[in-house]
């Protein structure tokens, strides 16, 4: 079947413009989904391991009872192929030349850190270096402030208990130095083997033994399953997913990546649909002839089905060939942003959605018009038959809409996203209906003439069906691209707004009640007022409605807050960034009740009216839940799970005060003076943590930009598909106009005007629909307030008008460069 085979060869197909558009759109769809899926899973791994470095491991086991854990626990981890490390944390006095200071010691084993890295400085003028180990035995690294506080230099000795250790470096950043408010006083880091010889740790000393574990998820999970039954109440197992801030950033980044991917797929699907309809139209003569020559409609169906299958395979292979280098590039970018190697790992499970996309686009968008080729009458060889009215394509459109929203739902996993897009599109189609009616009603009265704008208007009217479908496709393209730009902008603004330049970057902890006013006054005088000061009482949630909480809440729920002491507080008023979701805030003078953070309440299944019992030291306090409130965890301000009213259940409990404030980097040296003046106040420097969060925002931004490029490519393909739909008609008209004596300049001006009008209409509609979709998205997905985006939105119709009119000019090239006769003959 040489001739018949040749009829369906892809190589020959490639010469046809419409087929090229279908294949390009398929390749883009597959490439986009594959790249995004690969990158999303890579980003997830990277961010998790970034977040892991906050623990200096994948998991931590803390023993707060001052005793090491049984040795077999560590042996078991090693046998399961996990990496392990060990830390001992305690506070003690250290002595310098002629000063002493309470410090917080972290003694680490050789393996520390299993994840992340430390930043140190060999001397106060030296450069910062990143290392993946702690100090050697006999040496210590210290917080730079200790140089002044103890009046020592690098190379001097530091007396820790009965040992003299050499100061060999300044500790600028430790991976796990961020979040724990129990960290007291400036840090000194030493080797764990030196601890015993200092003699500092005695029976009953307040010491925390921390064990670090790293390895693959399955091994870690297996180990935890083994370990869990043996854990006592003072043991706390911690994983990265407990860090609210990071899992939130991660979820948003993922949602956004998937949204971008879905939009690219929508665009590519539109391109596939338009181009394959065009292709089907161009095949009608061939089909009629094949029927005349004796090929039955089932034979025709098979012929084109095979061709579709070939396109599908080509699209999949092509898409993957594009995706892999693109993904490689993105991992390079990520690695650069993070300043550390990122593994280039092709996760085969990430490729399934890409292949599914190719199949769905092909069968929901390309197949229906091609399937209808079977119905082309053979009689067409003798006489042209009435074309399709568009009505028979209605069921196809329904199938296509269902398919595409199914795809979006599958990727984004967010029904609200699907509904927002569907709503935006419905609005767009409604507006188009009105516009179409207006076009027909007003333009009918315009008569052609020698003026370019009249010719343009007549042109719009004459091609009103094509004009409207072009406006529809361009408007849809613009809507999707604009939605993405808007969401990206507002997402980034959102993040930056969360971490303004003057976001608090230092915590003051352990402020004695009688020192509160003095501390606040100290910073007030220096122009750095403190944020709200909160009392802090350490206590454990032990009973829920009279039942021990560990019995009521199943272990599977693994609520971290139950495993450790909570910071309890009382507040006179609701902090500005908290909001009540159920119940009501304490009234003036109210003395009972407790307000619970919403997510914890959800995990514990708490409702208003539940009785909670807290154990604080040897006392028990029981209060009723009177409100549930949300908390802005990433605000870098003190946040509390449990808030009591002033003079409520916490009155007379031993409290210290906590606050946060912003201190510019160049004023950090002032902290020394503060520490000298208030030696008992602990200072927590979290500017490093903030830097890390901003780093993650930067990574995500770069990923988003890469995706915008893909979307743009998809939009260009859609444009090519749409323009190709009317190319021949327009060229023939242009040639006729020239034959009949029209001047070139008239032709150029009227065509450019016609396309500019098309572009402007499409731009206005697309932008309006995008605003509607973003409004819905913002509402549901990103929990932000909606505002108009004039600065982004206004230029889009203008740009679209200019670009389209240039496109129209470009399309005219063959009409202008060739003699009309030659052109008419060529187009016959």
């Amino acid at each position, binding site marked *: 079947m040489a*001739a018949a085979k040749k009829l369906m060869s892809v190589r020959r197909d490639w010469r046809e413009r419409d087929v090229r558009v279908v294949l390009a759109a398929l390749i883009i769809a597959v490439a986009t989904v594959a790249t995004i899926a690969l990158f999303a899973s890579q980003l997830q791994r990277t961010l998790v391991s970034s977040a892991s470095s906050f623990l200096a491991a994948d998991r931590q086991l803390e023993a707060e009872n001052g005793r090491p854990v049984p040795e077999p626990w560590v042996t078991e981890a090693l046998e399961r192929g996990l990496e392990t490390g060990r830390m001992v944390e305690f506070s003690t006095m250290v002595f310098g030349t002629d000063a002493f200071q309470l410090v917080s010691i972290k003694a680490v084993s050789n393996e520390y850190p299993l994840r992340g890295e430390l930043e140190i400085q060999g001397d106060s003028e030296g450069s910062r270096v990143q290392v993946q180990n702690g100090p050697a035995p006999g040496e210590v690294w210290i917080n730079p402030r200790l140089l002044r506080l103890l009046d020592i230099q690098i190379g001097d000795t530091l007396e820790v208990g009965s040992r003299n250790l050499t100061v060999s470096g300044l500790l600028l950043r430790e991976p796990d130095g961020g979040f724990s408010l129990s960290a007291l006083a400036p840090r000194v880091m030493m080797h764990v083997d030196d601890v015993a010889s200092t003699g500092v740790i005695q029976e009953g000393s307040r010491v925390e033994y921390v064990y670090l574990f790293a390895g693959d998820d399955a091994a870690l999970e297996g180990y935890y399953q083994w370990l869990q039954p043996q854990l006592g109440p003072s043991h706390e197992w911690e994983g990265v997913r407990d860090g609210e801030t990071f899992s939130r950033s991660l979820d948003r980044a993922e949602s956004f990546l998937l949204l971008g991917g879905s939009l690219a797929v929508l665009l590519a699907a539109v391109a596939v649909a338009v181009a394959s309809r065009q292709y089907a139209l161009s095949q009608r003569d061939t089909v009629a002839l094949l029927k005349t*020559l004796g090929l039955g409609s*089932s034979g025709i169906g098979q012929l084109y089905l095979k061709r579709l299958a070939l396109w599908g395979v080509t699209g999949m292979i092509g898409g993957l060939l594009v995706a892999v280098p693109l993904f490689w590039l993105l991992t390079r970018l990520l690695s650069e942003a993070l300043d550390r190697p990122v593994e280039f790992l092709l996760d085969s499970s990430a490729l399934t959605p890409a292949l599914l996309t190719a199949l769905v686009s092909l069968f929901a968008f390309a197949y229906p018009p091609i399937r209808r080729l079977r119905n082309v009458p053979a009689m067409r060889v003798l006489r042209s038959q009435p074309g399709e009215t568009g009505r028979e394509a209605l069921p196809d459109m329904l199938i296509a809409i269902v398919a595409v929203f199914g795809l979006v739902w599958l990727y984004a996993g967010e029904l609200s996203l699907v509904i927002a897009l569907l709503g935006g599109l419905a609005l767009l189609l409604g507006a188009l209906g009105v516009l179409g009616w207006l076009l027909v009603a007003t333009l009918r009265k315009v008569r052609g003439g020698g003026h370019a704008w009249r010719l343009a208007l007549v042109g719009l009217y004459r091609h009103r069906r094509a004009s409207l479908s072009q406006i529809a496709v361009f408007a849809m393209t613009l809507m999707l691209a604009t939605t993405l730009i808007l969401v990206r902008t507002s997402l980034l603004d959102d993040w930056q707004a969360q971490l303004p330049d003057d976001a608090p970057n230092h915590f003051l902890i352990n402020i004695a009640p009688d020192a509160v006013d003095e501390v606040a006054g100290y910073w007030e005088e220096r122009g750095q007022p403190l944020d709200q000061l909160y009392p802090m009482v350490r206590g454990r949630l032990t009973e829920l409605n009279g039942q021990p909480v560990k019995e009521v809440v199943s272990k599977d729920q693994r609520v971290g807050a139950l495993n450790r002491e909570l910071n309890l507080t009382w507040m006179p008023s609701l902090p500005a960034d908290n909001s009540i979701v159920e119940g009501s805030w304490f009234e003036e003078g109210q003395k009972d009740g407790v307000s619970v953070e919403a997510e914890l309440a959800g995990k514990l299944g708490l409702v208003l009216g539940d009785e909670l019992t807290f154990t604080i030291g040897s006392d028990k306090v029981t209060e009723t839940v009177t409100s549930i409130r949300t908390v802005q965890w990433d605000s870098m301000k003190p946040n509390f799970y449990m808030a009591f009213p002033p003079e409520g259940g916490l009155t007379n409990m031993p409290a210290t005060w906590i606050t946060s404030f912003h201190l510019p980097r160049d004023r950090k040296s002032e902290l020394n003076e503060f520490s000298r003046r208030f030696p008992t106040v602990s200072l927590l420097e979290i500017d490093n943590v903030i830097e890390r969060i901003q780093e993650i925002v930067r990574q995500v931004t770069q990923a988003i930009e890469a995706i915008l490029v893909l979307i743009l490519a998809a939009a260009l393909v859609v444009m090519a598909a749409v323009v190709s739909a009317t190319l021949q008609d327009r060229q023939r008209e242009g040639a006729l106009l020239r034959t009949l004596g029209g001047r070139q300049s008239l032709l150029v001006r009227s065509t450019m005007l016609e396309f500019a009008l098309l572009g402007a209409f499409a731009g206005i509609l697309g932008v309006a629909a995008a605003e509607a979709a973003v409004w819905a998205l913002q509402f549901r997905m990103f929990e932000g307030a909606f505002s108009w985006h004039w600065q982004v939105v206004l230029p889009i119709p203008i740009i679209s008008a200019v670009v389209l009119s240039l496109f129209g000019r470009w399309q005219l090239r063959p009409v202008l460069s060739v003699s009309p006769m030659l052109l008419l003959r060529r187009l016959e």
Partner: protein
Amino acid sequence: MQTINPDSQRPMLRVENLTHRVSLETDTLTILKGVSLEINRGESVAIVGRSGSGKTTLLGLLAGLDTPTEGNVELDGAVISQLSEDERAQLRAHRVGFVFQSFQLLPALTALENVMLPLELAGMEAPEKRARELLERVGLGERLVHTPRQLSGGEQQRVAIARAFASDPAILFADEPTGNLDNRTGQEISDLLMALNQEQGTTLVMVTHDEQLAARCARQFHIEAGELTEPVNERELAD
């Protein structure tokens, strides 16, 4: 294909009371009104008439490209209106050849491949050998690998004629075969068509408004406003 009965005594084509209407937006247009005719095996027949008289519609119905609103067409023993579309396609593949005014060659295929196509579709053996022979017979032995774009109008119609005879059809339908060609080329093409028709003993049904070409057929049917006027015997006219 049980309805096909290649009984040589029966006429090749029998048409009874053929009526064809198309519905337009407002009313119905009757294109053919009660046409009846018989064409014998090996006969050559011209259908002549002015533009819009319904002759092309009649040709389409005779060849089974379309089905009539009323009446019967019996082609080589098969009642066309009783066949499914696929059965009609089968019938065309094995028994019918076509030549069109606008040639209708597939632009992507070479001359040779265009001629091979119906042979492949009919499942015949050695399609390439047969296609070569035919192209040589129509004088295009040197142009086998040229695509239609690289051929002149007359050459394209020769390819189309070779394709029409490729599957050894019992009946050949030609729609204005010289309509797109200049006089001299048209003359050459009609010579070739007639000669091949003679050689192969094919029944020929040709629609034309070229009086000269029509005169070369054994019989002529005149069609006017969808109705057949009496068949005219060309030979009688010539006498």
